[in-house]
């Protein structure tokens, strides 16, 4: 049998040692009524080359980012991943290890996590970060629960310029606990700080920065309002590379940051595994969810690392734990650490600056394209919304045939935005890519004579 080393002779020897006659005897405790009395109805087993060939065929049917040039972001970003990242993170010693319960044997993973926590703190301007959460959206859900526990309040205010799927997750995590979630409508792509949105029952204000439309929010303004009301400011972020250039949330007054770490060296992977980041103030660390790695010493006084503050966690605290999280995304965090080590301060700034500059170039090109209009006025990072002369979903379909992933049609998430396309430009897009993108858009979506009357705005 594939992957089972035991030979028939060994099987017999083991049965003898156990003192039973057959393997069936080992299942005598399974009530007859619940046994499966027929063979499983599964697809036939395949040999190794067949499995690989079939999977390669399936993979080949997908319009991945090496086939379609990717101007799609919206929470999953096509940044350049240096080949060293996964050649190192993918090493068997990391890949096939479990959670480092036996610290002395697992200093590699533990030290890497400690370094990762540091790098995340540095990038976000925060005091502590944990060793990983599932993804940005669930990290936001946990952040809201954390805010509730820290404040003892049960209302959360969230901007609609937060990623729609993150908002959905936020509700899923908080509503069973009796938290009420109120949403704030953005204006011209932004969530202008409004003192009236917050009161003495507000546990947290949640904004995303840069927000889902790519716009830079007034985080400082929200911090003041939230703090004045005794609430916490939770900042969500879908691409922490922004803070290679932008003032980090910690400096803007964020109490908790919930971010998506995929852009830090992790592949698109059709949406997962990604990397949940959660970071906060030191004072809040005992209410944090997830694993934390700390430095300590061994019996000879040498530096070493362990999982720590475990009394927050489910395996100790059970129903009183800060979260139920157990398995997390350690390997993705490791990849992020490798990525950030390779880039360094100059590299993250370079990536962020390239994103801003390139996105600005494309934005200005699209602003000039007949029938297209940049939707919002606020400064943006690497994404922006453009209004299209034909329904955005149709534009996207047409552009795919031209070899582009043109962006995300926002009609799917926002009423009245059927003609809105969220476009992303990262450092891997060249000027040629963008010029060809504009040409293709012009072919695919330019207002056609017969339609002009009805559609122009």
């Amino acid at each position, binding site marked *: *049998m*594939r*992957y089972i080393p*035991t030979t028939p002779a060994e099987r017999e020897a*083991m*049965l003898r*040692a156990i003192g039973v006659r057959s393997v069936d005897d*080992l299942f005598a*405790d399974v009530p007859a009524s*619940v046994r499966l009395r027929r063979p*499983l109805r599964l697809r036939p*087993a395949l040999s190794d080359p067949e499995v690989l060939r079939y999977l390669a065929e399936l993979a080949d049917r*997908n*319009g*991945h*980012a090496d086939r379609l040039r990717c101007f*799609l972001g919206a929470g999953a970003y096509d940044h350049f991943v240096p080949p060293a990242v996964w050649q*190192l993170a993918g090493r068997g*010693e990391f890949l096939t*290890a*479990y959670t480092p319960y*036996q610290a*002395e*044997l697992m*200093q590699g993973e533990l030290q*890497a996590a400690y*370094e990762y926590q540091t790098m995340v*703190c540095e990038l976000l301007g925060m*005091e502590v970060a944990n060793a990983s959460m599932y*993804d940005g959206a669930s990290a936001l859900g946990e952040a809201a629960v954390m805010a509730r526990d820290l404040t003892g309040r049960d209302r959360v205010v969230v901007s609609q310029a937060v*990623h729609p799927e993150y908002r959905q997750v936020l509700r*899923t995590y908080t509503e*069973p606990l009796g938290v009420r979630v109120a949403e704030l409508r953005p204006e011209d792509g932004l969530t202008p700080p409004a003192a009236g949105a917050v009161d003495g029952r507000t546990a947290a204000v949640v904004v995303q920065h840069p927000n889902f439309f790519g716009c830079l929010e007034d985080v400082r303004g929200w911090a003041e309002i939230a703090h004045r009301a005794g609430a916490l400011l939770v900042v969500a972020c879908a691409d922490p590379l922004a803070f290679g250039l*932008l003032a980090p949330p910690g*400096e803007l007054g964020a109490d908790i940051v919930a971010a998506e770490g995929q852009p830090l060296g992790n592949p*698109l992977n*059709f*949406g*997962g595994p990604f990397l949940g980041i959660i970071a906060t103030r030191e004072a809040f660390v005992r209410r944090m969810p997830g694993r934390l790695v700390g*430095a300590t010493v*061994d019996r000879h006084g*040498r530096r070493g690392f*362990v999982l*720590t503050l475990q009394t927050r966690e*489910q*395996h*100790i605290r059970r129903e009183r*734990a800060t979260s*139920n999280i*157990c*398995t997390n995304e350690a390997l*993705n965090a490791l990849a992020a650490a490798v990525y950030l080590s390779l880039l*360094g*301060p*100059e*590299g993250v*700034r370079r990536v962020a600056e390239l994103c801003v500059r390139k996105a600005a170039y494309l934005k200005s090109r699209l602003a000039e394209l007949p029938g297209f209009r940049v939707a919002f006025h606020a400064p943006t990072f690497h994404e922006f919304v453009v209004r299209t002369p034909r329904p955005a979903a149709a534009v*996207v379909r047409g552009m*795919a045939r031209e070899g582009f992933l043109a962006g995300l049609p926002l009609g799917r998430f926002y009423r009245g935005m059927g003609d809105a396309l969220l476009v992303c430009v990262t450092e891997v897009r*060249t000027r040629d890519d963008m010029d060809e993108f504009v040409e293709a858009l012009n072919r695919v979506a330019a207002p056609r004579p017969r339609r002009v009357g009805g559609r122009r705005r």
Partner: protein
Amino acid sequence: MTDFPLIFERSVPGRRGHGLPETDVPDRPLEELVPARALRTRPPSLPEVSELDVVRHYTGLSHRNFSIDEGFYPLGSCTMKYNPKLHEDAARLAGFARLHPYTPEEWAQGALRLLWELGEELRELAGMDGITFQPAAGAHGELVGLLMVRAYFASRGERRTRVIVPDSAHGTNPATAAMVGYEVVTVRSDARGNLDLAALEAVLDERTAALMLTNPNTLGLFEEQVDRIAERVHAAGAQMYLDGANFNAMVGITRPGDQGFDVMHMNLHKTFSTPHGGGGPGACAVAVKRHLEPFLPVPVVVREGDRYGLDFDRPQSVGRVRAFYGNFANLVRAYAYVRSLGADGLRAVAEHAVLHANYLRVRLAPHYEIPYDRVCKHEFVASGVRQKRRDGVTTKDIAKRLLDYGFHAPTVYFPLIVEEAIMIEPTETESLQTLDAFVEAMVAIDRECQEDPEKVRTAPHTTPVGRLDEVRAARQPNLRWRPEG
């Protein structure tokens, strides 16, 4: 010996490790693009190192780790089986790894089909009707499962407030129940290691939303009365939730759906062999009976003829527990695994996992206490009480000493109901030779406990660092490096 340096300690100002491009668009003053007050003023203190520094650092760290690829990992409840290398190549195919989650469906047919087919296979294995792959791990799956239970009762206008959990349950079970707003009621296990049926009956009532059961349970024992338990639970109008962490013991032998479970999660990083990555990422499927299908998270993968799609239009759905669709790369691996083994291969997995565990149990029984000494499933729980009382050596000491013998330690101090618990899961992918070597090591340590207990108490001795001070770590938390000055 000096400490292995932190990557920050390798930093040299101005050193670079990347080959990123320069800008190729017209230069515009940055302030035209981003207002000055939104800009960062101080760069993050990330390490400034060369690519070679990075390669050496992480290669060096990898040599300070322990993995399946290096040796035996009998970590009970974790199913540390071999992770086939083929899966790595499969998951890294550009068509999967480079696929954006918002790619239009017609351009993601391969990925959607894979999800559909994996769903079919796992539903058959589980004996269930509906499935989702959204949760990122087992605990996340529990969350999805209980949210569905909650939504189910809400849809029926029932308000049930309690979830019953055995005292042997994994910590994620009560933690999850609490996250969904349930009160947790703990029920004890009986002398044979089964859930105590009478105790269960005593707490079952119309407030009970669900029983969360693990089967085989965390003692490695099959719940011999699972059919009767299901009957009682259903009679009380409650739902049966299976924590499927131990599915490895029963694939192809008995199906949770046939045992009476309404909803279960499968840790694909256990039974279905996706690598653990030093703590994750995992992957998880939650499978349900028909009556719970309307409550599955959105989206659900659907098929029409030979087109595959995502169904978002599910008004009764519990919503989402994460963005996008799940830990897809690991679903590719799980799919490869299921297709490599097929029906016979998967049944053989359960058979050999159980065979190997019983072999170890019988071989270790003369040396270590086995509190529930009956035929086990894929794992069993021994105890260090004898050594503790006789030699003053704790289970923790024994675990640490095992590291010197080149093995990872078993899971210790879990389940909580066994004193000095030593929970051993060999899996089907380990050879008889490895099992025998492990037995020898355990026997040798038992001897050391008697002859040289101090050696065991101060273990490990051959690891990169000695016994670490966990108390200090918790009392004076040092959770990040700080730049000097």
